[in-house]
């Protein structure tokens, strides 16, 4: 923003600008409006007066666009007597826009992107030090367990091991990191030991496939979806999170459901949150009212790890 305003200021002789903003990107109207305000403030800060009429000295247009790699903001400006339009372009990184919403007496969902990687991700865990001063992300891929220490600006690989298997991992492999149970589950393999102490983990063959397949909770109409029963209740009712029904080529959602008793019918509660790709796995996160979601972002190709938190909106 500052660099665009500086470029405009450097080559504009007129003190009055007519400013216009066009949003061609996926940014919301609210975000675009905020950017308009910020850009105008930058220009005013540099001594310009913003006029509403196009007869002003210099016309400036800021276009919010987007490419494959980033948002692209383009400033075009031309003085009243100038034959040529000036152009300045900046790239703005795309942030996760998985948002939050909710209504009264309903399950309100929020998602937080914890990790992303180009390689397949089956599950992840977030380990926090007792004083909450540092955290570690553990990622589980087909045959790969990795530990990354979170720094102030980026995460650094700290440890990892591969899980051997006689045959290749299935294309639709599932896996779970069970921090409390001190084990990592993969198809026909199980690694046991303290997740926080990776050097002592040992992997052995396992025949108990039900540990991976039996964890699914089915919601009527979502029998093949990913789902998780959360620990806390909302208004005395159980809370279940479930993904949508689309296949793995489509954007997906996570929807909250409320259930009065385990024999009853689950009903939709609150608004869903949207993701740019299918939810491949959804597991309850510890004892909290939260779940771990693994999403394959179809726009970036990355596998993303989210903590989805459900709060009871009253």
């Amino acid at each position, binding site marked *: 923003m500052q660099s665009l305003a500086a470029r405009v200021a450097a080559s504009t002789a007129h003190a009055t600008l007519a400013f216009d903003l066009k949003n061609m990107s996926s940014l919301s109207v609210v975000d675009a409006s905020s950017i308009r305000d910020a850009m105008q403030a930058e220009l005013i800060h540099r001594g310009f007066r913003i006029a509403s009429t196009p007869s002003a000295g210099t016309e400036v247009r800021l276009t919010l666009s*987007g490419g*494959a790699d980033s948002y692209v903001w383009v400033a075009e400006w031309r003085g009243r007597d100038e034959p040529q339009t000036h152009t300045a*372009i900046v790239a703005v990184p795309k942030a996760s826009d998985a948002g939050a919403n909710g209504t009264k007496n309903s399950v309100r969902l929020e998602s937080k992107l914890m990790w992303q990687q180009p390689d397949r991700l089956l599950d992840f865990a977030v380990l926090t030090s007792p004083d909450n001063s540092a955290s570690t992300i553990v990622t589980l891929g087909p045959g790969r367990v990795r530990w990354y220490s979170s720094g102030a600006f980026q995460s650094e690989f700290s440890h990892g091991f591969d899980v051997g298997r006689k*045959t290749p991992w299935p*294309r639709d492999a599932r896996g779970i990191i069970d921090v409390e149970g001190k084990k990592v589950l993969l198809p026909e393999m199980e690694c046991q030991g303290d997740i926080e102490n990776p050097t002592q983990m040992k992997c052995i063959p396992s025949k108990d496939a039900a*540990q991976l397949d039996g964890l699914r909770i089915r919601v009527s109409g979502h*029998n093949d979806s990913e789902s998780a029963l959360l620990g806390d209740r909302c208004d005395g009712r159980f809370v279940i999170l479930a993904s949508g*029904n689309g296949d793995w080529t489509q954007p997906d959602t996570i929807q909250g459901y409320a259930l009065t008793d385990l024999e*009853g019918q689950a009903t939709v509660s609150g608004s869903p949150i949207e993701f740019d790709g299918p939810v491949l796995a959804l597991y309850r996160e510890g004892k909290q009212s939260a779940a771990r979601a693994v999403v394959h972002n179809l726009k970036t190709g990355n596998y993303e790890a989210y903590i989805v938190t459900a709060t009871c909106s009253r």
Partner: protein
Amino acid sequence: MLRRLAAVSLALGLALAGATRVETARRPRYGGTLRVEIGATVSSLDPAIAAANSEEAAAKVQLATLIYDHRNPDKTFAGPGAFRISAWEPGKSVTLAANDDCRGGRPFVDSIEMRMGRSARDRLLDLELNKTDFAEISPEQARRAGERSVRISTSQPDELLALVFVTGRHAAEDVRVREAMARAIDRAAIVNFILQKTGDPAGGLLPQWSSGTAFLFSAAPDILRAKELSSQITPSPRLVLGYDFGDPLERSVAERIVVNAREAGITVTSDPIQRSAPLHLDAVLERWRMESQHPRESLANFIDVLRTESIDGGEACEALPAAATPEQIYGCERGVVNGYRVVPLVWLPQVYGLSARVRDWKAPAPGEGWPLADVWLDGEAP
């Protein structure tokens, strides 16, 4: 803890499976034979044997992405892939069997039966009659296929159809001739009438979804300026435009360009190219397929094509750094486009027809092969 939760969830599963259950297959299933039809006739899979045409070359790459694990930086393929060849009849058919030892996991389908040399008309007919599961469809046929209830999958527009002026040809050496041609062509008409709205008019060398700056390039015709430019040139410009003999889309576009040029006072005759481009051509229609979704990589690849074909125009991009900013990429594009050696016409998507039982198909991004190892088949075999 996990076992306890599993027990609860199983109980819930029984309790919640109510009367309104909607059965949806979301998780993949293994098995079945995927029937594929392509237009190309691949006579050899040996990389050392050159393909007879661009269609065969593209099909060879697609087959290689299925039977090899990865592509090296030098563009050679290596390692055992998702499938292995179980039957091969050069130029007619190939059968691929799932590789159980594939590094990325065994493919979901047991095998792929691919028939080659199928005409666009036959492929479309076989899709309608459920005689094939997967086939390429020409962009200009996409709308008609959809109207005939064929299930369509369309990629982002990733193939540029461009008019390229041959360096050294006297008739096109005057930049005013080239600019007049660029301004005379009605790209929207090509998209609306020839492509039946499957595609986008192109003003730059990269599509909007990739660069984010394509809107800065005008794709609108300016016939008045085109006439003004051509009127400055004596004698009146006369050009010969070549196009691929076997490509009905290029033929239609070439005919349209002839009409547009005539309106601007330029005489263009179109000439189909059967093998190598004859020496008398002043300009040719070319299709450039993006090899990456990233704008810098794709643009660099297009500039390499210009160099390989000894076409001037890429000089503006010589200093394009590896980590080029959007402004540097735009500057490179602008330099090429303003030289009018390359006149972008339209962006074409890749269009695929699918049978109803094909699941988890995702149109590949530029540079990716057909992800047939990830496809699975839902329901009974036909």
